[in-house]
């Protein structure tokens, strides 16, 4: 099977994209203006991201589906309102993270947005867990377009009236060009923004119109620097099967009510870790100088003992300096703890810091 192209491939080419292969897709890493400009334009104005490679999994069902999904996800799904979304993860029995995802309650069931590299495996796992009781569609006929940044609401609302009234982490059906589109107010950049699920045939038109209204395409490169500044995890780097949600410092995303019942996959380990603590935990790390500590950089304490590893590291254009995330032994995870990063054989001072590196500007609270 060859490398796939998204519906926006031609548009990416027209905009001089540099392509990389990512999770089996030809994806734009950047356009002619470059990652730093695309990053800053998204923070200050509005950037468009083609995230059509991500999985859009529709699972159709009612009350019974909710019960069955609660055995899988650590979420209070029976109280999740129609068109509301939650961040969650698919865990194995040891609470290892197999994917992180956004799940939204829709009329006919649930829509789950999955990582591109995990989506086929997730589909298999979920199909098995749900014992093929429900209709499940990993929809290849729909594109997913994210528009992110402070001007996005105004720009998208000119094309799709009413989106400006959505709250953060909620969605609805709208019309674009007389076609039904499903839009959620969400994203992965630390900015206010939207994700638009739209039939492939209309994705190019919608995106070109967004560009005409003043938004600009931004590539996967900018998406990575934006999400890292926002302290958000990237699966396969900051999250994987060897890490649990508690270790990943994502316990906020686990429903307290569900923990008290403890009847979901991985709940034994989660409860144990919540009670007894963890040995390693994800933290933000800020190098003191300009040195960039990339993934797999070793972290040492002040006595030169190896205490952890960087899982994501880059230069943050809005922070105007290097930023990183990684896992360290729990006792060194306090804010302002001095650590050392080994880069090209030399050790450089850095400090454990709170996340995000860049303050969010979402519309209304995260918890509703």
């Amino acid at each position, binding site marked *: 099977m060859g490398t796939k192209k998204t519906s926006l491939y031609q548009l990416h080419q027209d905009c001089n994209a540099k392509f990389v292969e990512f999770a089996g897709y030809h994806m734009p890493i*950047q356009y002619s203006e470059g*990652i730093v400009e695309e990053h800053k334009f998204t923070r200050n104005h509005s950037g468009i991201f083609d995230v059509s490679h991500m999985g859009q999994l529709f699972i159709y069902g009612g009350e019974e589906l909710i019960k069955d999904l609660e055995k899988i996800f650590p979420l209070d799904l029976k109280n999740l309102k129609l068109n509301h979304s939650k961040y969650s993860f698919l865990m194995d029995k040891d609470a290892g993270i197999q994917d992180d995802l956004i799940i939204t309650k829709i009329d006919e069931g649930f829509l789950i947005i999955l990582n591109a590299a995990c989506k086929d495996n997730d589909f298999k796992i979920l199909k098995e867990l749900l014992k093929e009781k429900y209709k499940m569609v990993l929809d290849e006929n729909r594109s997913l377009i994210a528009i992110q940044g402070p001007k996005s609401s105004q720009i998208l609302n000119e094309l799709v009236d009413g989106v400006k009234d959505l709250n953060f982490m909620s969605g609805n059906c709208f019309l674009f060009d007389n076609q039904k589109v499903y839009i959620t107010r969400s994203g992965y950049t630390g900015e206010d923004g939207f994700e638009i699920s739209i039939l492939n045939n209309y994705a190019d038109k919608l995106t070109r119109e967004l560009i005409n209204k003043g938004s600009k395409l931004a590539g996967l*490169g900018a998406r990575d620097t934006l999400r890292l500044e926002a302290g958000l995890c990237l699966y396969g780097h900051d999250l994987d099967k060897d890490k649990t949600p508690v270790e990943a410092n994502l316990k906020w995303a686990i429903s307290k009510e569900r923990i008290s019942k403890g009847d979901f996959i991985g709940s034994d380990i989660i409860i144990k870790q919540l009670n007894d603590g963890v040995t390693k935990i994800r933290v933000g790390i800020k190098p003191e100088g300009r040195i*960039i500590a*990339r993934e797999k950089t070793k972290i040492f304490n002040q006595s030169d003992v190896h205490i952890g590893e960087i899982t994501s590291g880059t*230069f943050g254009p809005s922070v105007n300096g290097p930023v990183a995330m990684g896992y360290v032994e729990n006792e060194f995870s306090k804010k302002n703890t001095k650590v050392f990063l080994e880069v090209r054989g030399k050790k450089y001072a850095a400090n454990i810091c709170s996340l995000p590196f860049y303050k969010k500007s979402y519309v209304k609270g995260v918890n509703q």
Partner: protein
Amino acid sequence: MSEVKYSKEHEWIKLEGDVATIGITKHATEMLGDIVFAELPEKGSNVEKDGTAGVVESTKAASDVYTPVSGEVVDTNQEIVDDPSKINQDPENSAWFFKLKIKDKSEMDSLMNKDDYDKFAKENNT
């Protein structure tokens, strides 16, 4: 007038007397993207032909900078360390990396002239 020569690792080198000024080519900066970090060799240190003599990093990745000739580092360009974006703006002029007092001028012989380098860069556009 001194001739500028080019290496297969995308460095340029300009020899004046026995002092060579070295930097990375415009083609290299276009491949790297936005440069956000630069590390230079220490003044007074000795570097060997084709050895590592610095690092540049874009938002995406780190790349070594090699020296196309051997010599003693007599000067480095602190301006590009303080503001690495200057490397993207003016790579083959004000954003030079370091100056070497070279030992063996014959090391220059194997390097490419501008026409050959342009052809090489076009063929190795990765």
